[in-house]
């Protein structure tokens, strides 16, 4: 099986330096890419059918194509930003790529920046990833020394300067426009779209923000071609994907598998199935802000469209497993507390609606719930859960576990209210 993203990653998670990376065929994609025109590079990415790995799954080539090029672009900088602010609950895929193969990202970023004509690139990394940040900084210095970054890269005439920026640490900074605000030194509030960052982003200039995993794919696609990449996927979606599982399974972890690998394969073959004595009640397929799926969905392919049709989202592709010994109300409340805490405080439904939902869940979990509380939660789901009712996608994301929990685990909510206590706590 071809596993391009993790080919340099070993079980002991030792990092690879520039020489090792080059010895293993690294920066070959860059050589190929700099030989092509930016338009050709863009075409390869478009043809590759690569979709954004940060969670939304937006086609990368299409996103890049919105950046004004040549005469369409007013004079000034353009920016490429790598979103390495991996904060989604249950998600740890980017960390692996950042810590173990920093040059794969750097190479992908140079090519991405070349394609869109950016002359400055930032890696916006969550500050807890200090090992990764250090390795990236070292990698950038190495590249600058070798002429892979800086002015006139490899004699191509193209120049790019790359910087690592450690985030001050807010979940919302993972939202691309909030990330840009934060990078500008402002409050990390998301921005209304349009205008999209591709046109008016960092410092008001055209900017592309891509996830670590997305950018890590770029060099491989440029080097080996779009058809190769398309062939990697098992379903309509192309490439490989970093899948992960956390929760009470035998072997929690993170694996690179072909896009569209069935959930059952990930959960049972790679994660080893449920830990002894626990049964699967449901799982969040792509991090904390995706809808629950249940055992009925285990045979679905883990790709964007299939999971979307099942009523959830592929998200980051990292499953969080809910077992039968864990109270689903408490599980959802825990997530809601997180999202309420991480709201930037800009728009009302998120700032005040999430704490309100968290308070209702808290009451239910502690046996103080009332039957009409479920109506309140339904109303919150209806109003906060819809994209467009809030300023950004944080609050709708926060509502996804709640909304699906009300669907799949409604009896548990009612039991809390009827019994005046949490049945799981009562059992202990």
């Amino acid at each position: 099986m071809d596993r391009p993203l993790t080919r340099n990653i070993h079980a002991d998670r030792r990092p690879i330096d520039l020489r090792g990376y080059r010895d293993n065929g690294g920066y070959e994609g860059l050589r190929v890419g700099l030989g092509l025109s930016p338009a050709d590079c863009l075409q390869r990415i478009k043809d590759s059918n690569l979709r954004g790995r940060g969670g939304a799954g937006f086609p990368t080539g299409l996103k890049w194509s919105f950046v004004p090029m040549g005469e369409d672009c007013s004079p000034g900088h353009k920016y490429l930003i790598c979103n390495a602010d991996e904060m989604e609950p249950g998600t740890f895929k980017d960390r692996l790529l950042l810590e173990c193969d920093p040059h794969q990202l750097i190479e992908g970023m140079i090519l991405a920046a070349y394609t869109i004509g950016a002359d400055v690139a930032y890696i916006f990394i969550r500050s807890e990833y200090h090992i990764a940040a250090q390795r990236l900084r070292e990698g950038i210095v190495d590249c600058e020394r070798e002429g892979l970054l800086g002015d006139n890269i490899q004699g191509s005439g193209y120049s790019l300067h790359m910087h690592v920026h450690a985030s001050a640490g807010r979940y919302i900074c993972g939202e691309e426009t909030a990330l840009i605000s934060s990078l500008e030194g402002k409050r990390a509030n998301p921005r209304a779209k349009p205008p999209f960052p591709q046109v008016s982003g960092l410092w008001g200039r055209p900017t592309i923000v891509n996830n670590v995993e997305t950018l890590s794919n770029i060099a491989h696609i440029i080097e080996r071609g779009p058809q190769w990449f398309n062939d990697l996927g098992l379903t309509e979606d192309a490439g490989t994907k970093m899948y992960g599982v956390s929760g009470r399974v035998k072997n929690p972890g993170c694996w690179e598998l072909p896009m569209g690998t069935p959930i059952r394969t990930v959960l049972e073959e790679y994660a080893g199935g449920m830990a002894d004595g626990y049964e699967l009640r449901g799982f969040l397929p792509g991090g904390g802000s995706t809808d629950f799926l249940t055992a009925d969905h285990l045979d679905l392919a883990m790709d964007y469209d299939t999971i979307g049709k099942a009523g959830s989202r592929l998200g980051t592709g990292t499953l969080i497993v809910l077992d039968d010994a864990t109270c689903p109300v408490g599980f959802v409340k825990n997530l809601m507390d997180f999202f309420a805490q991480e709201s930037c405080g800009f728009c009302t439904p998120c700032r005040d609606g999430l704490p309100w939902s968290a308070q209702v869940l808290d009451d239910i979990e502690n046996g103080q719930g009332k039957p009409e509380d479920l109506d309140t939660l339904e109303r919150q789901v209806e109003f906060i859960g819809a994209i467009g009712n809030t300023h950004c996608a944080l609050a709708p994301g926060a509502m996804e576990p709640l909304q699906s929990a009300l669907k799949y685990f409604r009896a548990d909510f009612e039991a809390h209210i009827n019994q005046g206590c949490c049945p799981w706590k009562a059992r202990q």
Partner: protein
Amino acid sequence: MATIRIDQQEYTVRDGDNLLQTCLSLGLDLPYFCWHPAMGSIGACRQCAVLQYQNEEDQRGRLVMGCMTPVSDGAIFSLQGDKAQRFRKTIVESLMLNHPHDCPVCAEGGECHLQDMTVMTGHRDRSYRGRKNTHRNQYLGPLIHHEMNRCITCYRCTRYYRDYAGGTDLAAMAAHDHIYFGRHEDGVLESEFAGNLVEVCPTGVFTDRQLVHQYTRKWDLQSAPSVCTACAVGCNIVVGERYGKVKRVHNRFNAEVNGYFLCDRGRFGAGFVNLESRLEFPALRRPDGRYDALDHHRALEHALRAMEAEKVAAVGSPRASVEANHLLRLLVGNARFYPGWSRGEQGAAIRAMELLRDTEATVPDLAQIETADAVLILGEDVTNTSPRVALSLRQAVRNRARDMAGELRLLPWQDAAIRNLAQDTRNPLHIAAVSNTRLDDVAASHTCLAPPDIARLGAAVLEELLPGEGQHFGDPTVDALAQQIARDLRQAKRPLIIAGAGYGNTTIMEMAAELAAALCHGGCEAMLSLCQGEANSMGLALLTGTGGARVHRLEDMIVQGDIDTLLVLENDVERRCSRRGFKLLRKHVKTLITLDSLDTATTSLSDLVLPTASFAESEGTLVNHAGRAQRYFPAFPPANERRPAWFWLLALAHERGIEATSRLHQFDEITRHCAASIPALAGITEAAPRSQFRAHGLRVPRQTHRYSGRTAMRAALSVHEPKQPQDEETPLAFSMEGSQRDTPGALLPYFWSPGWNSNQSLHRYQKAVGEPLRGGTAGSRLLYRQGHATLERAAMPGAFEPRENQWYLVPRHAIFGSDELSALSPPLRELTHPAWLEITPAAAQALQVIDGDGLIIENERLRGYRLEVRINPSLVAGCAAYSAGHAGTFGLLPGEWVTLQKDPDWQRREPAVIASDRGGVA
């Protein structure tokens, strides 16, 4: 135009507006919080949600935010749709989670936008059972009261304070539902425009600290349309009164002047009206120096007897109305009328008037200033002399941002998007001043020069625009700057030159006028704005400066002496002349009669004082710096024997048998007589409707229809409520009866509309949101482009040459303190400083002084001036800047050379810091 459908009703509306402003303009009720007509949309509160349908077939629709949705032809919306209504109700319920139920003790109660919107959405029952978040409040100074628990986090305050007004010390802090709007620590808000937070905040987080202490509901205020007297800009204000006291000043929208905002000097500067020291009765001086109170008949008798003397003269005032000055001049005759300016002020005021009268350039109102695309400020510290102009300039420099937005097809109201796009891109603003100014942060260049050199910079720019005799500045840096300024001005479509009377230097103003003329000849719509000193400086200049009459100087008149009786109208002579001059006043004048609303040094010397009504208790016309005549009306009748100045003067004129006044009985007649006899002032009758004006046959009520407690207020005296005072002089009534419908803008005493109790009701009075008032914009412009600007090219002024051991005096204005009236207002008095003299660090070293020490200022004319030292590193070398308008600097003249020496007897206000106390760090 676009045709849209809202709730099955078709409307033709302006394309590209957002739906919220469209709805409000159509008179439809759509609740909102974060949007503001002057600040645009950001989409934070999500309160203005409506349903939008994709097409005829779409039955479900989707929620969109009104403020973020442009209207376009064929769009279909529903405000009444069930889902939209439920959503808006939920939003208000969410905003209310942490809002305290303290409306009964909140100064915003009764005019609270949050109350209005809550009622509008129909939210009633609270389902949230959690605890409310609470915050610690901050001390933000004597002007603004902070009550953070009431906050609904709409972000209007920081958007206004930081984005609109350029303040830096108020910010949103923390995150999620703990957002806190405040300073990094307790302290006085730094912005000169902080007071607008009171009106910008939709609830009671930021309230008027004076009003909080003098608790009165909006519906219990008796209000009148008025004009701010704190500077020459003439912002339109609403003065609110109860129990005979001015309770507060609010903004009165005028699309051409102040728009939605005031400065803090104006908003909080009316407190002098309430001073206990103001006289209520005429006062006659006894030989022992104490005063007897008189009734007004006896007072007039005394005055008339004094005026029978042979040599009678009168001193007018740039802070008195046009009408009062006019009557005074009629009373004593043109030859014996002294306008009442100081030596420095007089030439500047008259020259500014002439330049503006004769210029070919547009003399802009504030709204026009906001359209400028390149600005040059020559030697005027606008933030401190005409503060509201500075706020407009902050908007002008953003025009390029709007142009950039247009290229991306962003709409002007997409505020956040435009700011993100443009970042720090601004239109060029060039400032030349004697030291740093408060606009430097948005300026393309700011350069510190002495006043003569500022004029030379103007000449150098002129040379670049119209190459002539090779008049260059002589300093390569300044000449390069002049080239840059000329380039920026030439490339602009609407360049604006600002100068003013601030430095008392007429050459600078002349250079500014020449620059504007040169730009006009270049074919663009150039603008020329000259800042003036006082509320009616322009009116007085138009009154005195025409007809070729010899203009007398007040101090010369006093020094020459030989006056039997001198009438002083609303003027403190001490402020206008040197100490010697003021001492001679008593010696050279046999009988001194003063008409004033204040207790001043001059009234304390007077033989007879006639107490006049302040601007809040009388009517009058003022002419602002751009030549706009505006009328103020009394909010309440003057107490006891106080009378409007025009009333006293008219009575004297009648008794004296002055022919011209024999047919004048009412205020309107004086205005008309003034307009008829002085061509330059012909337009003042148009400033406001006459007293006979009636809307629908009714007067305009000063009291709201909910005005309460009229009987109870006097119950301690009598339970019988007397007849309300009649107002013969204006179309307004001291009553809640009358009609406010279709009221002309000049007569609007307050803004209120059913369901809209807060000042947000303003849109119901506008043609459309943000547009002029339906009843017409208040005021009338007296200056029209004369088109004969063939100014003689002035010779290059001489360069400023610093002298050894001598300093060139320049005035330094302070927003709080330099203006006579507002400086007396108690909250502003807290923010004023005792008089000071600014010198450079080098001068301080040479003079062996540090901050807070005293300096003795002397020359052949000046003796006995002692001022506190302030070291200003940005001040031009060779200059010393004195705090203009502060007690202690009266009589100092701009451009005088003085010697300075350390005052050995000076008592420091605070002990000097010894370097070793700071750990040895000097």
